């Protein structure tokens, strides 16, 4: 069988007046019809650039400097703009990451599909409509005739992605390039979309390139894989072989960094190939260390106890009560977290897990129910000596490291703010010493002190967040999806760091994540949430081995398999 796509030693660079960034260097890729090729790599590895280079949609000043892109034997680099447009619609289909933005919100699904059908295969009128219905059915949207008249916002995220796939299929392409097609979707929907892509690929004998950062996706769907690192393809080959027996050091650390869903490991090992985060982490001796100074006071054994917690958000405000409408974000939730425990909250988006975090942290007001921190009632209270003292025991690590740090403050000032505010250091010298020490412990080093947050990567910023949280000497840490915005290797570093700190300081951690394997690696006990209520609370092992609730079983089945 001849190759559908044959990229030979392609290089792409972005030329500026100051420097040339080689985004892709000497990458060769081949793809046969009916085959799924995964391109996997982390941020900045150049994987998206490859996808854009194939269809000649590189953003200026990016350009292909060397190599050939043979598509069915024809070099795409020799085509002019008009020929390229034809290739893009009719021969190569694209699926983008965010179905929210890749559909036009002002046109019905039908109009968008029919427009594409008109342009690509030149059929019009009722024939085109029939074709559109047929396409929607092929991507698994039922009642498709009625749904042609709906607008994108009337579809869910997964349905929208199906429509995007239907659009990509409209011109009967030979090749589909999917750039992070499931990153914006929940796990349950991700599994369906991946199945769909795989099925269409085999039925229609099209070649599919899946670009993703997620090894789980690659393991589930692709036949072959190319691992990208720093613009180069470090390893290519059969998926099974690469995942089970990686040759290159980078691939090894990448795979080691993927949290496993099937069993718990103590630490993520051999992940030092990328961000050199694992500097010598000194252990903290609580009896000697500044962080331990206040730890002598008596604390009860229950760190957080939540009783019958309820929170509604109003969807529609109105003067009259009957016209108002609410979404019940948290419904009758009760749980208690023991001192020194890592407690996981897991659920899909919209299940209310972040709301619980924000309620406990006192960022939003409770409607009903009570929250106690170490037996101190803190519900809807911010004043009072006892309440303030109890609240200071709790700190939060946020999801987005890009917005959780004040961009106008130096790292030193960010970390020292609580020390400064609560006067927990006697002199400026001592304060700087503490900050230096904290930054050391989170693996940043003291030369970070005078820099601003934008000079750091996402993982480093998350370390700054952790240092800031530690600076108020907390007993409880709430981590709201602390690693979901990070690359997998960086995630491994951060999770290791959190575990170490928990060991050293005896922290209680409320760990929130949608990612089951991460939960498995981190938590002692887990609560599964759905539609604002808790389905099941169990120890991590028993949840993963013998889930009791239907929904827990369902979630576990959908978990990307990592037992390669």
């Amino acid at each position, binding site marked *: 069988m001849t190759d559908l796509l044959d990229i030979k030693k392609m290089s792409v660079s972005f030329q500026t007046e100051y420097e040339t960034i080689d985004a892709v260097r000497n990458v060769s890729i081949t793809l046969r019809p009916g085959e799924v090729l995964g391109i996997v790599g982390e941020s900045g590895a150049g994987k998206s650039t490859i996808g854009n280079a194939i269809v000649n949609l590189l953003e200026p000043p990016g350009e292909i400097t060397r190599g050939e892109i043979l598509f069915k034997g024809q070099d795409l680099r020799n085509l002019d703009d008009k020929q390229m447009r034809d290739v893009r619609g009719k021969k190569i289909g694209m699926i983008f990451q965010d179905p929210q933005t890749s559909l036009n919100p002002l046109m019905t699904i039908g109009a968008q599909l029919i427009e594409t059908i008109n342009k690509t295969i030149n059929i019009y009128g009722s024939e085109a409509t029939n074709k559109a219905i047929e396409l929607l059915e092929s991507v698994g949207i039922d009642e498709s005739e009625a749904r042609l008249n709906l607008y994108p916002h009337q579809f869910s995220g997964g349905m929208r992605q199906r429509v995007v796939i239907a659009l990509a299929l409209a011109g009967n392409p030979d090749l589909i390039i999917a750039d992070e097609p499931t990153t914006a979707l929940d796990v349950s929907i991700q599994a369906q979309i991946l199945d769909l892509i795989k099925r269409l690929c085999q039925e229609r004998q099209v070649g599919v390139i899946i670009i993703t950062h997620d090894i789980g996706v690659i393991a589930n769907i692709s036949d072959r894989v190319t691992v990208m690192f720093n613009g180069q393809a470090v390893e290519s080959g059969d998926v099974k072989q690469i995942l089970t027996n990686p040759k290159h050091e980078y691939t090894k650390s990448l795979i080691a960094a993927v949290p496993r869903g099937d069993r718990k490991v103590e630490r993520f090992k051999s992940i030092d190939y990328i961000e050199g985060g694992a500097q010598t982490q000194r252990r903290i001796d609580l009896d000697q260390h500044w962080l331990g100074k206040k730890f002598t006071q008596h604390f009860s054994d229950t760190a957080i106890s939540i009783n019958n917690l309820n929170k509604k958000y109003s969807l529609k405000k109105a003067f009259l009560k009957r016209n108002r409408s609410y979404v019940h974000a948290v419904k009758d939730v009760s749980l208690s977290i023991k001192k020194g425990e890592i407690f996981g909250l897991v659920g899909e988006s919209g299940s209310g897990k972040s709301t619980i975090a924000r309620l406990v942290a006192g960022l939003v007001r409770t409607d009903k129910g009570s929250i106690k921190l170490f037996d101190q009632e803190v519900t809807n209270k911010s004043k009072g000596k006892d309440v303030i003292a109890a609240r200071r025991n709790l700190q939060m690590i946020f999801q*987005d490291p890009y917005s*959780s740090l004040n961009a106008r403050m130096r790292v030193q000032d960010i970390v020292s703010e609580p020390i400064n505010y*609560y006067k927990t250091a006697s002199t400026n010298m001592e304060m700087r010493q503490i900050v230096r020490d904290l930054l050391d412990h989170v693996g940043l080093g003291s030369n970070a002190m005078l820099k601003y947050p934008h000079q750091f990567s996402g993982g480093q910023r998350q370390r700054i967040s952790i240092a800031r949280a530690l600076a108020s000497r907390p007993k409880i840490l709430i981590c709201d999806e602390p690693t979901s915005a990070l690359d997998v290797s960086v995630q491994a570093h951060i999770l290791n760091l959190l575990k170490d700190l928990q060991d050293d300081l005896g922290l209680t951690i409320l760990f929130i994540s949608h990612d089951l394997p991460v939960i498995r690696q981190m938590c002692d006990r887990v609560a599964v949430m759905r539609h604002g209520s808790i389905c099941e609370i169990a120890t991590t092992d028993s949840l993963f081995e013998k889930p009791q609730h239907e929904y827990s079983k369902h979630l576990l089945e959908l978990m990307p398999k990592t037992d390669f």
Partner: protein
Amino acid sequence: MKDGQSLIEDKLNSAKYKKVLKANFLKPATLIPILLLAFIAGCAIFAPILAPTNPYDLAIVSIMDSRLAPGEVMFNGTVAWLGTDGAGRDVLSAIIYGLRTSLIVALTSAAIALTVGIVVGLIAAFYGGKIDAFLMRIVDIQLSFPAILIALVLLALLGKGIDKVIIALAIVQWALYARTVRATAIVERRKEYIEAASTLGLNNFRIIVKHLLPNSISPLIVLATLQTAHSISIEATLSFLGVGVPITEPSLGSLISNGFDFILSGAYWITFFPGIMLLATVAAINVFGDQLRTILNPRLSK
């Protein structure tokens, strides 16, 4: 997840930003207004040294010098390069001193309006809800009247004087600043660093001053520059209408108004030169403000 493409974009942007910054400061459109503004500010600050005569000093103002054409020699021997006005004051000196009054009025009122506007805007954005609704309705009411009308009414109530003009101009302008600050601050308010600050247990005052304020004021830099030009012209209008600064402390506007009586009898210079100066000042500030916007927001320059 930041993908590769956006990482590359970040790198390009930072390189581009430096380049744009440098190029923008060196191009004539920025350089000329800056030089002009420096010159104007210099004139205003060093008015007593630079001006050939002191127009406030009644002892040397002589009615004999009334309406001398540009270039004629005055009674005391100094050359009136831009002529004299109806009372015999040297127009050049009057312009230099007038510039001083105009700039003091504009800058002081801008500073007061900025302070009030920032405080109101930040409080509205931070507390939200009813406080926000209440403050913003006041802003709405304020902005629904033409600035010049409000200023006229206020000055009719307050009476004449530089301080009164400053108060009137501050009242006219604060609402615009308040609304602009609120718009930025409301976005910043929802970011996680503000939540982080409140989980640290900081009090609201500190959160507003140390976290919200520094991240919300950058759009104001441009607005304040353009608004200063605007208030110079409002002040000139008010003075021209006779409700602004008193004739004994002339601003550019009152000089123009002063000369207006003589323009039909051929003494054009009394109105013309202050007018040119007003135009140059306002234009220079406006062009500078526009350039500042480009410099601070390089995306617009594409």
